[in-house]
Each structure stands twice: as C-alpha cells, then as structure tokens.
C-alpha cells in the first residue's frame, strides 16, 4: 500500500490512504492494492467500505486493482473461497493463484501498450482466464500456456495481475493517473 502511495505521489497525485468511508469523498481515483483478497475483503466489510466503493464505482470513480485488487474487481473468481464476493466491475474470470503458489512466483518483462516494456513482478498472481471482448487489453503475457491479459481496462475500471508498485518503474501508475 505504501509503495503505491509513493508511486502515485511521484507521478503527481495527491494521495490518501483510505481506511474509512469518509475518506472516499472527493477522490478522482482509487487503487485496490495487492495482498490477500480474503483478508482485504474482510476489512472492506468490517470498515463498511464495501457498499461505499460499490456505489462509487457505479458512479464512475476510476479504480485500479492490482493482484488481489484485480480479484476483488473481477466478475468471476475461480479457485476462491466458496463465499468469496467481488465488486463485479470488470468482465473477466480470474483464477486465484492462477500462476501458482509462491514457489512459482516470478518476474519478467511485460510490454504495455503506449508505454513500452516494464518489469512485471507476479507474486502468487491471479490469472485472467476468460475475458469479455469489450475490455481493452493493455498488456499480455505468455507463461507457457498462451497469451493471457495481465493489464486490462474496462471503462473506469483497471486491473493488473502483477505488481507495478514493487519496482522503480512508475509508468503504469502514470498511465492510470493520466487517465483521471
């Protein structure tokens, strides 16, 4: 979370670390960070942020979900907990740990449309296994089983399988902030 904050501030955004519903007011964009999607989902429930973010996305707030954040935005979760919910804002099917457990976590180079090659760090990363033709695929990666989208956009909702905040490259954050 703090890495995202640093990156967003480096590309010129004023950053708020949102812990409560009141802090959502007046935001131009919201980043849902990596972590464990079940733990983040639990916190969104206990803090009351879940319905508030749901409404904000419907009202057009730009949202960028990375790793666990992507899972929380997707319309369908595979290999999740049986009771796992999502905001269902991005028409993609995502498999939790689709690239494997930690031992299979990897770093590679990802070519992002309009940006060029950026480092991609995939940590127990979710894999987009099916996607609507309406989404814009900004980057793909072939991990030995064909090309899968790893950075996507659908209207005001962005999702990313990897962790753009873990390297010194700020261009993916720049892309999101420039769109606001």
């Amino acid at each position, binding site marked *: 979370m703090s890495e995202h904050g640093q990156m967003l501030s480096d590309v010129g955004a004023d950053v708020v670390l949102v812990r409560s519903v009141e802090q959502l007011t007046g935001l131009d964009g919201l980043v849902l960070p990596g972590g464990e999607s079940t733990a983040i989902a639990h916190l969104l429930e206990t803090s009351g942020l879940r319905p508030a973010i749901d409404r904000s996305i419907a009202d057009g707030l730009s949202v960028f979900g990375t790793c666990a954040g992507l899972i929380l935005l997707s319309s369908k979760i595979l290999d999740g907990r049986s009771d796992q919910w999502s905001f269902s804002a991005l028409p993609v099917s995502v498999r939790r740990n689709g690239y494997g*457990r930690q031992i299979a976590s990897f770093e590679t180079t990802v070519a992002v449309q309009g940006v060029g090659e950026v480092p991609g760090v995939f940590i127990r990363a979710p894999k987009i296994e099916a996607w609507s033709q309406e989404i814009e695929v900004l980057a793909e990666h072939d991990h030995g089983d064909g090309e899968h989208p790893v950075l996507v956009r659908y209207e005001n909702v962005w999702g990313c399988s990897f962790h753009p905040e873990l390297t010194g490259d700020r261009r993916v954050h720049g892309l999101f902030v420039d769109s606001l």
Partner: protein
Amino acid sequence: MTSTSDPSTTGSALVKRGLADMLRGGVIMDVVNPEQAKIAEDAGAVAVMALERVPSDIRRDGGVARMSDPQMIQEIQAMVTIPVMAKARIGHFAEAQILQSLDVDYIDESEVLTPADEENHIDKWSFTVPFVCGATNLGEALRRIGEGACLIRSKGEAGTGNVVEAVRHLRTINAQMRRLHSADASEIFSLAKDLQAPLALVQEVAATGKLPVPLFCAGGISTPADASLVLQLGAEAVFVGSGIFKSEDPVRMANAIVEATTHFRDAAVVAKVSTGLGAAMAGAETSSLEVRLAERGW
C-alpha cells in the same frame, strides 16, 4: 497488441521479498489443524503458520520439537487460499528441502523448534521458497539477511503470552538502526564489527535507516492491545502463535487482533474490539522460564 516471450525468473530477491511486502499490515496466525486454519482465514489472517504444536504446548511438553508432518501441512494447504508457512529447525536444511517440495509459501527457520546445527543457519540463498528468521538485535537480523532471509521477525519469547521480550527486541533493533543512520561514514566499519554483521548490509542500513527487508514481530502477542503496541513500535505485521487458539474465545480473539492490527493507531477501535473479549491465554513471566527460546540462533 504487444506480447513478450522473455524468460521469467523465479526465486529472485524481488519475488521473495514481494510476498513479505504483501503481508504487511496483517496478522499471521499459528494453526495446528485445518479447522483452525479456516477460523484464521475467516477472521482475515493474511497467512497461517502450520505446525503440530503451538509454542506454549512445545514449552509444556519439552523434548525435541521438529518440522510438522507433511500430511498435516497439506491438509491445511487444501483448506485455505491464503499463504501457508511452515517451520524448519535452525540449520536443518533437509527439513527446509522437504517443506519447499511441499510448495509451502514461506519457511520459518525457527528457534521455537529444537536447533539442528549450533553453528550454521540454513543457506537460504540456495532455495526458491523465501525464508523468515527471528532476531533479537540488529546484528542477528543482518546475519540472517546475509544468509538469504527475506523477512525478519523480532523473536520475542514464544509461548509465554508475555509481550515484554518482543518489545525489548523491537526497541533494540530500532535503536541500533537509528544509531547507524546517524553515524559518520568512518564509524560504520567499527559498528559493523560490533554488530558482527556483513559490512555491505550495515552500510545499507546506515544509508536508509531501515532494514532491507520487512520487519515483523512475533513472540508473546496475545491481545489486540499487544498488536497495537508492537505496530506503533515499528513492526509492519504480527505473528500470533499461542495467543489466539489458547484464548477463551479464539474466533473473537482472531477477529479482534486483525482489526486492532489494521487500526493500530486508533485507540477507540482497539478499545471496541478489546471489550468483552474473554480471557487471553494464561501468561508466563520471563524470569520463571526454564527455556529461553530467543537465545537459540546465533
């Protein structure tokens, strides 16, 4: 549409430390069976530590404490979707090889188990799976990082329900880092000698004022207030061992410690989750202990 065919790299320092980064702000809970693992995940734990006996039981039973039965680890992996960690004995690289072959997400080279080597810790660089190690001071932390640990936890005194040692170790590490950060460049060599730590890592801490890997806290955390305390002292996440499943109401305690960890600076939230929580685990005063686990490891 662009694509890449670059070969990818597993087990790099970035990939190993990346998972530790994702656990920051969370609670990692000791669990001894799939049911407890489910309770931990339901409560919002960011990971579980699979082990046969929690530290307070290891302390009570005595004898040699070893790596857990692989079957028990696999049952827990099958139950939850969050990362599963497991413990290997200090220096027991064969146990670590077994845990890596089981696809555990993190290995804790832990003083809670009986050490297997009284001179050498595991060469953690030779593994793809990342390691967490305990430390009581900055020199110990940097020696472990030098051996390839990607995450440091202050040791505390596991299985006591007494937070005093955790506080001592966190304060010691932080004070030593502040001393380095304010040191003159020509003082670093002598300070590295005193710390008995690799010079390059000492120089890095002197420049940045913090460890090159995340710093979590373990050993003796047994209430929401304990979690808030150690987070305010600079820990980035907490390991809770016996504190949850040895308390009167583990489900409530697990939820309460998670919430207190998220809102650790908000005393009103910590007060709310501490209210009517039932008894925490029975504690032990440090001076009454027969075995000091924190003294294991070198």
